[in-house]
């Protein structure tokens, strides 16, 4: 019995929280609020909370800019040199990625065919022996 009541409290409060501000409360929920002082107190607090949320946090005077506000904004605008610095700084990660990509391509690419032949010839033992035999003897 108690848990059923508790479920009903929860359901009514959920509906109140999800309802549009200032919307009509359903008749069934209204009947529950009339019979349940706890939920009625919750509904009153929710209404007050929404009323406070609707009002500006700042006082009326703080909501009106003074005559020199636009000038203060213009004074804070970044100068062209600053903009260039910012642009360079923003381009830095892209530049680093580009350099790394070029390095990786350079290292991972196989050598072109003509260099490949030369390399394989140079490492052939027969060719090394032939060069050794043909080379003039060094002597005094």
């Amino acid at each position, binding site marked *: 019995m108690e848990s059923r009541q508790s479920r009903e409290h929860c359901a009514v409060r959920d509906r109140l*929280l*999800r309802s549009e501000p*200032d919307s009509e409360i359903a008749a069934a929920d209204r009947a529950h609020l009339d019979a349940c002082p706890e939920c009625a107190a919750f509904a009153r607090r929710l209404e*007050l909370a*929404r009323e406070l949320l609707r*009002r500006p946090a700042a006082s009326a005077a703080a*909501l009106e800019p003074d005559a020199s*506000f636009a000038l203060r*904004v213009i004074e804070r605008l970044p100068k062209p040199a600053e903009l260039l610095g910012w642009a360079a700084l923003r381009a830095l990660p892209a530049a680093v990625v580009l350099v790394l990509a070029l390095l990786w391509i350079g290292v991972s690419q196989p050598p072109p065919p003509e260099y490949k032949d030369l390399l394989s010839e140079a490492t052939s033992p027969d060719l090394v022996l032939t060069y050794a035999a043909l080379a003039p003897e060094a002597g005094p």
Partner: protein
Amino acid sequence: MHTLARMFMGAEPIADVADSEAGLIRASLNGDQDAFAALVRKHQSRVFHLAGRFFRRPEEVEEVAQETFLRAWMKLGTYRADAPFEHWLTRLCLRCAYDRLRQRKGEPEALETDVESPAPDPDARMEVAKLLAHLSPADRFVLVLLDGEGWSVAEIAERLGWTRVNVKVRAHRARKRLRRLLEEG
């Protein structure tokens, strides 16, 4: 009508605004600071009202308004003329306000103590104001838009550039915390 709703509907006829505004935007894009100052003057009041929804101290309202226009200057090239400039500026202002609220995470929110407005039960109002002060800035931000301004999830998502799922999750979390506070109070 709520402040933000007024801001979106606009107070001037759209055609008149568009003619002069497009010229000012084009000139600003070419680096004309006088044209940008005219844009600032045109929209400053609305931006102040919007920032004032979230911040109590006048210095903070001014700071958020200035930051909004600075971002507008820096990002003016990304503005697409298919939507009103005001909507774009509203998004920038909301994001500035949200960023600032997040920066001061952990600092207690100043209490709403406006006693000038008539209240049927001032004690109860003060009690609820104290409870609201316990909300995190992010929760308060979402609740101001949902319950204060009466925006739907879709409207918040569109105006802030968040996904609907993101707004739903934030709204659910904020309402859950509000509920806990109101039940404990």
